[in-house]
C-alpha cells in the first residue's frame, strides 16, 4: 500500500466517522421527538484492490443510515392503539354521564322516588292534612324533575359525543390525506439515506389514524403504508378515501367511508376514539331508553291507580303525571293542577268516604313494592337501582378494560421504544467511539503526511 492510498483510507475513516457523529447528533437532538426512530450508520468496505498479488483494503464507507424499526411489531402496536383507544374513550365518555346518576346528594331518581313514596306513607297518618298532601305533590314534582334532569344529562352527553364524532371526521380525513402525501414522497425518495424522516412521519400519521379510528396497517417493501378499516383501505399508497358522519333510516348517526360504489357504513367497525364515542353513545342511548321505560311505566301505573280513587270533593282522580310518548323521561311532568291544589289527590277509595279515607292512598303506596317493570319481575326502586348499578358497572368494566388494554399497548410501545428509541448513554459511548475513530484516522493522515514530507525533504 502506498502512503497516498493510506491517506485515502484514513480519509474514508474520517468521512465515515463524521457521518456517524452526525447521525449520533441527530439521534441526540431527537431524544424527545415523538415517533422518532434512532438511526445507525451501517459501514462497508470498498472492494480490495490487488496490488502485485497483495490484496489491499480501501478503507471504509457508510453504506446506509439504517432506521431502527420492526414492522411486525409496529403492525401489532397500531392495531392495539385502536383497541385500547376504544376502551379508553368509552370509559372517559361514560364518566361524563356518571354524575347524572349520583345518588349521594339526595337529588337522584332513586332517592327522589323514595321520597315520593315516603311522603305518601306519611300521608297515611292523616290523608286530609293539607300539609301532608302538599308534601306529596312537591315530592312528585321533584321526582319528575330528577327524571328530566337525568334524561337531559344523557341527551346532552349523546349530543356531545355526536359533535365530537363530527369534529373528528375532518381530522381523520386530514390525517388520511397527509399519509397518502407522505406515501407519495416515500415512493419518490425510496429506501435511501433520506427516507428515515419520511418514515417517521408516516408512522406518526398511522399512529394518529389508529388512535382516531383504529384499523390495520400494512407496509409495502418500498416503505409506503396502507391502512385498512374492516377490509376497506382508507389509505392505499398515494390515494385515500374520505370518511363522513351520516344518519341511518332511524336518524341514528353512522360512520361512512366513501368508496367507488358509494358509501360503506363502518360504524360497528370503528375502533380508537371514534369507536369509543360510538360505543359510549350506544350505551347512553340504552340508559335513556331504560329511563324512558321507567318514566312511562311508572307514570302509567300511578295514573291508573290514582284514577281509581277520589279526591276530597268526591271527584275521580286525574292523572298525576303526564309525558310525551317516545320521550317520557325528558317530558315527564307532575300535574300542575294538583300542584296548585293538592286536594285533588285521590287518596280516598270512595266518592262518599270520610276525609280520612285512604284506601286508594294505600293502593298507591303499594305500587312501591309492586313488580310493574320487566314483565312483572321488578319494582320501581329496584328498576332505578338496577339502572344506576348498570351505569356504574359499565364505567367500572370499561375503566378496567381500558387499563388492561392500555397496559398491553404500553408493553408493545415499550418493546418498540426499546428497539427504536434513543438512549443517551448509548449515544454518548457511540460518540466517544466515533470521536476516537475520527482522531485515529486523522493521526494516520498526519503520520502519512509526515512520512511523505520526510521523503520529499530527503530526496530534495
Amino acid at each position: 500500500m502506498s502512503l497516498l492510498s493510506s491517506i485515502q483510507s484514513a480519509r474514508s475513516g474520517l468521512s465515515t466517522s463524521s457521518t456517524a457523529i452526525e447521525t449520533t447528533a441527530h439521534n441526540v437532538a431527537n431524544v424527545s421527538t415523538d415517533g422518532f426512530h434512532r438511526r445507525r450508520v451501517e459501514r462497508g468496505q470498498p472492494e480490495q484492490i490487488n496490488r502485485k498479488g497483495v490484496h489491499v483494503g480501501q478503507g471504509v464507507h457508510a453504506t446506509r443510515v439504517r432506521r431502527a424499526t420492526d414492522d411486525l411489531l409496529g403492525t401489532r402496536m397500531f392495531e392495539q392503539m385502536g383497541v385500547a383507544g376504544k376502551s379508553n374513550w368509552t370509559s372517559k365518555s361514560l364518566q361524563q354521564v356518571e354524575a347524572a346518576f349520583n345518588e349521594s346528594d339526595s337529588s337522584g331518581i332513586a332517592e327522589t322516588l323514595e321520597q315520593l313514596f315516603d311522603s305518601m306513607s306519611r300521608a297515611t297518618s292523616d290523608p286530609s292534612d293539607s300539609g301532608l298532601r302538599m308534601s306529596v305533590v312537591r315530592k312528585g314534582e321533584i321526582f319528575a324533575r330528577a327524571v328530566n334532569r337525568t334524561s337531559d344529562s344523557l341527551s346532552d352527553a349523546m349530543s356531545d359525543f355526536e359533535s365530537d364524532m363530527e369534529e373528528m371526521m375532518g381530522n381523520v380525513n386530514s390525517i388520511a390525506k397527509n399519509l397518502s402525501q407522505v406515501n407519495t414522497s416515500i415512493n419518490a425518495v425510496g429506501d435511501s439515506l433520506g427516507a428515515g424522516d419520511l418514515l417517521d412521519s408516516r408512522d406518526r400519521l398511522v399512529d394518529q389514524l389508529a388512535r382516531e379510528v383504529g384499523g390495520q396497517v400494512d407496509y409495502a417493501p418500498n416503505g409506503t403504508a396502507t391502512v385498512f378499516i374492516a377490509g376497506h383501505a382508507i389509505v392505499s399508497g398515494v390515494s385515500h378515501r374520505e370518511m363522513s358522519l351520516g344518519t341511518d333510516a332511524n336518524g341514528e348517526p353512522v360512520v361512512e367511508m366513501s368508496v367507488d360504489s358509494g358509501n360503506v357504513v363502518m360504524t360497528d367497525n370503528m375502533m380508537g376514539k371514534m369507536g369509543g364515542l360510538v360505543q359510549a353513545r350506544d350505551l347512553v342511548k340504552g340508559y335513556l331508553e331504560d329511563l324512558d321505560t321507567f318514566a312511562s311505566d311508572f307514570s302509567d301505573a300511578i295514573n291508573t291507580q290514582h284514577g281509581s280513587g277520589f279526591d276530597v270533593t268526591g271527584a275521580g282522580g286525574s292523572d298525576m303525571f303526564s309525558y310525551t310518548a317516545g320521550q317520557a323521561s325528558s317530558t315527564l311532568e307532575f300535574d300542575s293542577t294538583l300542584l296548585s291544589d293538592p286536594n285533588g289527590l285521590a287518596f280516598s277509595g270512595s266518592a262518599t268516604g270520610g276525609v280520612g279515607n285512604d284506601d286508594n292512598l294505600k293502593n298507591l303506596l303499594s305500587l312501591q313494592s309492586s313488580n310493574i317493570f320487566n314483565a312483572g319481575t321488578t319494582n320501581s326502586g329496584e328498576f332505578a337501582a338496577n339502572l344506576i348499578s348498570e351505569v356504574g358497572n359499565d364505567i367500572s368494566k370499561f375503566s378496567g378494560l381500558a387499563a388492561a388494554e392500555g397496559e398491553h399497548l404500553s408493553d408493545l410501545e415499550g418493546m418498540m421504544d426499546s428497539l427504536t428509541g434513543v438512549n443517551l448513554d448509548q449515544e454518548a459511548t457511540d460518540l466517544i467511539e466515533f470521536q476516537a475513530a475520527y482522531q485515529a484516522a486523522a493521526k494516520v493522515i498526519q503520520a502519512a503526511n509526515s512520512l511523505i514530507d520526510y521523503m520529499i525533504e530527503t530526496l530534495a
Partner: protein
Amino acid sequence: MSVIRDTNSFLYDLVRGQTSKMATSVARLEEQAITGRRINRPSDAPTEMVQVNRLREEVANQEVYGRNASWAKSIQGLADQVLGEVTNIFQRAGEIAVSMSNEHYNADDRSAAADEVTELRNQLVVLSNTDLGGRHIFAGDAFDTSPFDSAGTYQGSTDIPETLVANDQWVEVGFDGSVAFQGSIDSFQVLADLKTALETNVASDVQGSITDVQDAAKQTISARQEMGHQYAKSDDAELLSDTLRAEFTTHLDSVVGANEGEVYMQLQQARSSYSAALQVAAGGLGMNLFDHI
C-alpha cells in the same frame, strides 16, 4: 434471554404514567378522607349500588314508620285517656244506680241523682266528641265532623283510618264511635234510661238499669282494651323502627362509609410513594453519560 433496552423516552413515559396513576390514587383517597365515604359514585362499587339503594330506602322508610307510629300513639293515647274518663262516668253511674235503687231514698234524692246523671251524660257527649287538633278521634275516617250530636246519634264513619307503621303493618289512628259507645249497648241511652228511672222515682226501675250501666262500663273497658292493643302495636312499631333505622344506618355506613383510620394510613402511604417517585424522577432522569465527558 431478551434484554430490554431502556431508552430516555421510555423512562420519561414511565415516570409520566406512574406519577399520573399515583396522583389519581392520592386524589381518590383524599376524596374518601374528606367525604368519609368509600363510595362516592356508582362506578366506585357498582355491584353494591343495589344494596346501597335498598339500605337508603329502608332507612328512609323506618324514619317515616317511626313518625307515623309516634303520631298513632298520640291519638291512641288520647283515646285511652278519654275512655278511662268514660269508665269513671259509668262507675259513678253504677254507684248512683245501686244506691238509688234502695227504698230508703225519696223522690227528692232521686231527682238530685237524675240531675247528676244528666251531667254525666253531657260529659259523655263531650268526651265522645274529643278531637286532637280538630281531628275527632271517635269519628272513624270522617274525623272532620263531630261524631255524636247531643241526642247521642252517631254521625261519623264506620271506616277506621289507619297509618303505616312497618312493612305491611297498619295501626288505627281513629275509631268507630258507634262501636266504642254504641256497640253492644248504647251508652248514651243507658244514661238517659237511668235518668228517666230516677225522675220517675221507681226504685225497681232504677235497680233494673244497673245491669245496663254495668254492660256499658264493660263495653267501654273492652274498647279501652282494644285501644291498648293498638297502642302497644304502635309502641312496638316505633321501637322497631328506631332499632331498624339504627341498624340499617349502621349497615349503610359500613357499606358506603370509609374506614377513616385505614384511609388515613393508605393516604399517608400513597403520598409518601408519590413524593418518593417525584424525587427519584427529578433526581434520576437528568443523569446520563454526557454529564461526564
